[in-house]
């Protein structure tokens, strides 16, 4: 496996690296699930969570992942920090560097902020979601969850439903699935499809009921009201009726198929409460798998020291 320098985008990875991350996560899962104690692997390393956009679950997930590996964690959020006093992104980055952090986990509303940060800093940068662009650890934890349920994903059919346009999750997800040889169908209102979707190399459908019988995974995207400043669909009720998954649609799925959602869910919009709570939904499992996957990313980015590796015993 080629070593990782940063984790900015799934586009930077090859299939072997994705499988390497998933295999590593598999071995770390007992620690993430607390069946085993935390390990001393990253003792003395300092991980900075730089969260310039609101996030609870991703920040906590990274926080726990770093702590299970015994790294020290600094949480830096835009609110109540120098950023709210008008400090530039570059100055914030240089300040963190001067404080001697070993890795920066960055979440930003601006697409490309992690890439920019990687140009300022030598330490590994981990993208925890940037604008509409990428959310690589979410995609990795999702394919990890799928692989645990379905085995090898080559030839498997994943149906991604909902707001693809605003979704960094969908972008990363499709790339990761294609690297592993899975087939992807996007089901979305025409208003919520990205402009150049034909270049994504996926099938596009407007008929959810028609694709469900052939699906191994139904992946429901969150309706992101905070990013919707235009009327993309008439009402939540109509969205729910046409694009949401309820029990009737759940029954159209093959018996082995699973239902996934990146969270936080809008119950009653993209997913009904009884589907969310059904045994087919692996949404809670995704959260635990997220810790294991993020541990794997931190381990692979931080456990080696390129300069030190040159020295032989």
């Amino acid at each position, binding site marked *: 496996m080629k070593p990782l320098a940063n984790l900015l985008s799934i586009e930077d990875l090859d299939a072997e690296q994705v499988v390497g991350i998933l295999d590593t996560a598999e*071995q770390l899962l007992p620690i993430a699930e607390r069946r085993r104690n935390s390990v001393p692997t990253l003792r003395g390393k300092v991980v900075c969570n730089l969260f310039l956009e609101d996030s609870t679950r991703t920040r906590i997930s990274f926080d726990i992942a770093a702590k299970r590996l015994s790294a020290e964690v600094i949480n830096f959020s835009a609110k109540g920090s120098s950023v709210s006093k008008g400090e530039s992104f570059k100055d914030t980055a240089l300040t963190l560097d001067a404080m001697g952090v070993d890795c920066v986990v960055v979440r930003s509303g601006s697409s490309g902020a992690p890439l920019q940060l990687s140009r300022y800093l030598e330490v590994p940068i981990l993208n925890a979601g940037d604008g509409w662009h990428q959310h690589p650890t979410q995609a990795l934890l999702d394919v990890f969850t799928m692989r645990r349920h379905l085995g090898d994903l080559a030839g498997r059919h994943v149906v991604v439903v909902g707001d693809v346009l605003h979704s960094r999750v969908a972008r990363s997800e499709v790339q990761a699935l294609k690297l592993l040889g899975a087939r992807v169908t996007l089901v979305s209102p025409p208003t919520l499809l990205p402009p150049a979707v034909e270049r994504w190399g996926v099938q596009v459908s407007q008929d959810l009921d028609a694709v469900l019988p052939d699906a191994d995974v139904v992946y429901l995207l969150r309706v992101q009201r905070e990013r919707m400043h235009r009327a993309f669909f008439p009402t939540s009720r109509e969205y729910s009726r046409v694009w949401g998954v309820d029990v009737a649609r759940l029954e159209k799925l093959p018996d082995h198929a699973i239902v996934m959602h990146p969270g936080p869910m809008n119950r009653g919009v993209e997913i009904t409460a009884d589907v969310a709570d059904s045994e087919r939904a692996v949404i809670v499992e995704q959260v635990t798998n997220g810790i294991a996957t993020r541990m794997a990313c931190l381990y692979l980015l931080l456990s*080696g020291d390129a300069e030190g590796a040159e020295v*032989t015993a």
Partner: protein
Amino acid sequence: MGARLLASIDEPPRPHAGHPARRASFNDRSCEAGKEHQGAFSVRLRLPPERASRHRSAGVTQLLTADEVSRALRRLAHELLEANRGADDLVLVGIQTRGVPLAKRLAALIEDIEGTEVPAGALDVTLYRDDLTRRGPLPLGETRVPVSVDGRTVVLVDDVLYTGRTIRAAMEAVLELGRPARIRLVALVDRGHRELPIRADHVGKNLPTSADDRIRVLVEEVDGRDEVVAEEGADA
């Protein structure tokens, strides 16, 4: 796997002497740091004449045959039973990678002798290594111990005992799993050169070596055959 290993044995020695820099690769299967010194080796094995005559090919000396490995394991099984006064409360824990099949075989041998089934597990110590920064990231193996270690005698099983650092990491890993009554150590080969105050309770074979030599234990389950070999460089 086996094919890759064999290929690496037949590789011509590197032309430059000393300690050529070699980056630890993520693809390196074995995690036993320091047990396998990479790079150039000098022919300084102090071997009795009958062993020296076992030369197979340039740079590779056979130290133990498959029969000798199997006899050593049988003796180790007897020794373990004698020291433990039976098979009660034993848990055999093999250290990844090649300690794992060795632990399984010892468990089977003990069952043959005593008629008692002894649990055998696997331990990956990578996350506890003290040299990970220098060598990492290394691929992780499975840790699976089928029973609770609390109050039991945990027998660590490793292929080669060398610096003792792997065993130090393994003890830390086992103590995280619970509170065993005691921890014992079985090594198929003890090659000396300890860097920590660690000693095996039972040793298959003591093989005095030079620190520049590379000792490889090959096991059927991983490498397709049982053998212990020393690999040397030609440029002493």
